[in-house]
C-alpha cells in the first residue's frame, strides 16, 4: 500500500505547536518524521512555504476613504445620521466613483443619502466651525489633525497643568492598549481634562530612543474617526511632525512625534497604508 499521499497530506497539515488534528491522525507521520531525512526536509520546506505565503497574504493596500464609503452605504438611520453629521463624509459620498453606483442595489440609496448629506453641509459647516466638533458622528483625519493641533497648543496641557510621574509602565493598563501597540512605557501623565463636545482627554509622555519623546493622547469619545483600529496610518500634522492614530471603540489614541518618520519608534506599526 502506498502511504505517500497520506504522508503528504499530513505534512501539509503539520504545524508545530498547533493542535490541529487528533493524536491518532498524526500516527502515520510520527515515525517518518522522526527518522526519515527526506520527510524531515519536506516538512521544513512546507513550513518555510507557509511562512512566506502567510507573510505576503496580508500585504494589500487599503483604498483611501473605504471606511467612510462603507458607513455611507449602510441603510439605516444610524448611518444616515453619520452621513449628515459629517461634512467630510457627505462630500465624499457625492463623489462616489461610478463603479459603486454600478452596484445597483445600493446606488440609489447612496445617492439619496449623498444629496441629503450635501444639503446638510451648508448648515452644518457653520455650526461645526463655530462651535468645534460635536461629540457624535464620524470625523475625518483632517478634523483629527486640527484637534491634535489644538491639544498641542492647549495651555492646560502644555504648560499650566500638573503632570504626574508614572513608573513601571503603569497608567495605560486601563485602556485597550498594551505592549502590542506601544514600544515604550509612559513616564508622565496629565488629565483627564474635558475638551470640546464632552471629549475627555488624558495625555502621556513616551520616552524614545536617544532622548526623543513622543506624546500619547488618549481621548474618550463617542465620535468615530476615520482611522483604523490598529496603529497603521501616519497622520500628517502641521510643521515637521507626524503621528499615528487609531481608535478602539470609544477610545481614540494619537501618538505625536517631531518627525513624520519617527512614530514607528514609539508604536508597533502594523502596516503603513
Amino acid at each position, binding site marked *: 500500500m502506498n502511504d505517500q499521499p497520506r504522508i503528504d497530506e499530513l505534512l501539509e497539515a503539520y504545524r508545530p505547536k498547533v493542535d490541529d488534528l487528533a493524536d491518532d491522525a498524526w500516527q502515520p507521520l510520527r515515525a517518518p518524521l522522526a527518522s526519515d531525512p527526506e520527510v524531515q526536509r519536506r516538512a521544513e520546506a512546507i513550513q518555510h512555504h507557509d511562512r512566506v505565503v502567510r507573510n505576503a497574504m496580508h500585504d494589500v493596500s487599503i483604498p483611501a476613504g473605504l471606511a467612510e464609503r462603507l458607513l455611507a452605504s449602510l441603510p439605516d438611520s444610524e448611518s444616515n445620521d453619520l452621513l449628515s453629521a459629517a461634512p467630510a463624509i457627505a462630500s465624499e459620498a457625492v463623489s462616489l466613483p461610478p463603479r459603486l453606483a454600478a452596484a445597483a442595489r445600493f446606488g440609489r440609496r447612496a445617492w439619496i443619502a449623498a444629496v441629503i448629506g450635501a444639503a446638510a453641509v451648508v448648515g452644518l459647516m457653520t455650526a461645526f466651525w463655530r462651535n468645534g466638533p460635536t461629540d457624535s458622528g464620524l470625523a475625518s483625519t483632517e478634523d483629527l489633525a486640527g484637534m491634535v493641533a489644538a491639544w498641542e497648543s492647549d495651555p492646560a496641557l502644555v504648560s499650566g497643568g500638573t503632570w504626574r510621574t508614572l513608573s513601571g509602565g503603569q497608567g495605560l493598563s*486601563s485602556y485597550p492598549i498594551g505592549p502590542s501597540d506601544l514600544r515604550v512605557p509612559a513616564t508622565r501623565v496629565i488629565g483627564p481634562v474635558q475638551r470640546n463636545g464632552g471629549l475627555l482627554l488624558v495625555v502621556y509622555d513616551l520616552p524614545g530612543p536617544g532622548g526623543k519623546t513622543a506624546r500619547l493622547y488618549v481621548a474618550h469619545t463617542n465620535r468615530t474617526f476615520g482611522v483604523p483600529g490598529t496603529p497603521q496610518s501616519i497622520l500628517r500634522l502641521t510643521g515637521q511632525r507626524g503621528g499615528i492614530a487609531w481608535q478602539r471603540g470609544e477610545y481614540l489614541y494619537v501618538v505625536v512625534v517631531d518627525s513624520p518618520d519617527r512614530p514607528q519608534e514609539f508604536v508597533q506599526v502594523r502596516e503603513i497604508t
Partner: protein
Amino acid sequence: MEKAVPRPGEPSAPVAADRAEEASCQCDPRPDIVTLVTEHHAAVYRYAFRLTGSAVDAEDLVQQAFLLAHQRLAQLREASRAAGWLMAIVRNCFLKDNRRTRPSEPLLDEPLGPDDEEFPDWVDPEQLQLALGQLPDEARAILLMFFFEDCSYKEIAESLNVPIGTVMSRLSRAKTRLRQLLTDTTQAKPVRQLAGRK
C-alpha cells in the same frame, strides 16, 4: 494604577448594574456596526481582495458583507469573534455569487507532480495574487482560511461542513498547486511583467 478615563457624567444605577453584570459574566459585548466597520474594514477588505483579485470587486464584496453583517448583527455573540464572522460572510457571499455566475470548477483534481523546487524567501504580494487567481474559487477560499484567517483544520471542516479528511486532501492539493505556481512565476519572470496591472 491609573483608572480608566471616566465617562462624562456618572452612569445611572441600572446602567452601572448592567455593566457590573456584563463584567462579572465576562461577556464580550457585541459591537455595533460602526465599530465593526471602523475596526475591521481593512482586514475584511484585504481578505476580499485576496479572494477576488480586484480592488473594485473586493470593495463591492466588502460592502455587501457589511450590509449583511448589519442585518445579522444579532448572530454575533462575541466581539472577539467579529473578524472571523465577517470573513465568513465575505467568503460565503463570494462563493455564492460566483456559483451563480460561473460554472462550478473541479477542485484541483488534475494530477500534481512533485514540488521539490526551492521556494523563495519572499513572495511579491502581486505575484501571490496572480497565483491565487489561477486557482478555483473554492481552493482559494480554503487557502485563505488556512493562511489568512489561521483557521485550524477542525475550524475549516466545521465551516465548510465537510470531514477533516476532506479538508486535508483539499488543502494539501491547493497548497501544493499554489507552491508550484509561485515557484514557476518566481523563476520565470519578474512579477511586474507578469502582473501587467496594479
